[in-house]
């Protein structure tokens, strides 16, 4: 089963929920898809045994064959090629690697070359396999790195995906293909507002989901009212406790120090499985 953990609002506790759940179940492959700010390895301290570069293809113009007709520039939807009277400028950070420019060039003057956008790391922590990506600082596009991380999915295992925050492309790329998505929120106006957007995304994508309320006890009760009205299952509540916050600040998954939580996280995963089977 593939379970992704997402949120809408940042900092609601996605990584914490994902890690504690992964540590409470067996046969886990953990993929950290928050390639802009990967944090899972800070909590799991894995032994990394493979580091590989992630490349995308970007155009490379052979100016000897180019007659500066500008077809490629007119075709490109992302303004990644600018053709001047005697010079072609390429902006690799805007390129989506669609390959269209090479196809439209009447002089066959465009080839593609590799451009590094990130790094893929894999290793293990205990019996758990971890794969994560790191977007190169200054590179705007996270999606190709996420795609590369997801290419390592091993469907025979319990796959846990930690998503970046938000509701646009990197999140969609992460949750696409999940059997279930756990949305982590907090009971505050910001938490609720961003949860509602995330719910729309999952409804659009027809992925079954449930909610985990983190820092329960702060804020107000409106998240509960919303979930009740929409019949969204609340799978788990984690109370706001200074001890949990302190453990997190030191990079310690709290279920390791508070073993009574292991069962609750295992139950969370089993509940997700039950909802998928339904």
């Amino acid at each position, binding site marked *: 089963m593939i379970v992704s953990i997402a*949120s*809408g*609002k*940042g*900092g*609601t506790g996605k*990584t914490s929920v994902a890690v504690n759940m992964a540590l409470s179940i067996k046969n886990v492959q953990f993929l950290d898809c*928050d390639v*802009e*700010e990967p*944090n899972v390895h*800070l*909590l799991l301290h894995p032994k990394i045994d493979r580091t590989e570069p992630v490349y995308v293809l970007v155009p490379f113009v052979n100016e000897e064959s180019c007659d500066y007709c500008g077809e490629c520039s007119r*075709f490109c*939807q992302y303004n990644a090629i600018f053709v001047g009277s005697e010079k072609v400028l390429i902006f690799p950070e805007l390129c*989506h*690697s*669609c*390959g*269209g420019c090479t*196809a*439209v060039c009447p002089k066959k003057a465009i080839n593609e070359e590799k451009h590094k956008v990130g790094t893929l790391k894999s290793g293990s922590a205990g019996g758990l396999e971890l794969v994560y990506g790191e*977007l190169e*600082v*200054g*590179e*705007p*596009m*996270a999606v190709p790195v996420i795609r590369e991380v997801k290419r390592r999915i091993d469907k025979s295992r319990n796959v846990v995906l930690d998503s*970046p*925050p*938000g*509701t*646009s*492309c*990197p*999140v*969609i790329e992460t949750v*696409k293909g999940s059997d279930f998505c756990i949305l982590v929120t907090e009971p*505050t*106006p*910001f938490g609720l*507002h*961003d949860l509602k*957007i*995330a719910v*729309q*995304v999952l409804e*659009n*994508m027809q992925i079954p989901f449930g909610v985990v309320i983190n820092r329960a006890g*702060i*804020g*107000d009760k409106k998240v509960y009212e919303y979930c009740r009205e929409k019949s969204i299952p609340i799978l788990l509540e984690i109370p706001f406790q*200074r001890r949990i*916050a*302190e453990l*997190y*600040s*030191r*990079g310690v998954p709290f279920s390791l120090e508070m073993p009574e939580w292991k069962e609750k996280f295992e139950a969370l995963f089993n509940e997700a499985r039950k909802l998928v089977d339904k």
Partner: protein
Amino acid sequence: MKQIAVLSGKGGTGKTTITASLAVLARNTVVADCDVDAPDLHMLLHPEIIKTQEFKGSKRAVIDKTKCVECGLCREKCRFDAITEDITVDPISCEGCGVCTIICPVSAVTLTERISGYAYFSKTKYGFMAHAMLSPSESNSGKLVTLVRQNARILAEKEESDLIIIDGPPGIGCPVIASVTGVDAGLVITEPTMSGIHDLERALQLLKHFNIQPFVCVNMYDINKENTEKIVDFCEENRIKTVGNITFNPIITEAMVNGKPIVDYAPESDVAKEIERMWKNIVSALKLGSG
């Protein structure tokens, strides 16, 4: 005109809470909510929308089934796996590149523009505001951020405001880069956790990459004072100014529940005083005229 972007790397460190308070303290400023995926600033500033703009950020391929001969060339050439086995476009995967339109032998595919969000010009109790809302599961948030920033400049020029404060999205990818290009300073809000420190470092690298002056604020600094010291030392070593330390105080959530910037909701609280002090530090470091 100066522009300050508030960012964080890690989400949920308090960007929006702090931006809202700076908007109150700065006076005659324009605020821009550039977290277009999950904008929250309006819940504290309650903007009254003056003008709405459609945002046509992305195109999608559409296949005319009456012309399609199902040869499958588009499916073969699409690098985003956006054409399904029965030769229809998966709108979620399609990135609107147009390769299918040129590859189709019977010209059955066209690109269509669609509304993928809205941008707003607004007025708040504290000044003017530019913001937006990306439709759920849309792409191209970077482009929408650029539009919001353009709108903020238009408002600032019209209102003769000399400062724009930008509430940035989390992360370091495309919408963040669009939020920081060309700004005068980046205020990175962090928290004293292992993740906070890791993400702060990456956010600072990003600012360095674009040659932007960094400031750092440690929010909830008393959650782990040891880590806070590490952050302060790290900043000192790298000659980065730590402009503020803000205590962990549930009154911040209370202000949020009441829909008000903390400096307005509880001006006498320690948190409000600390934000005021931080603002003064920024004003003097950037030699801002007003504030």
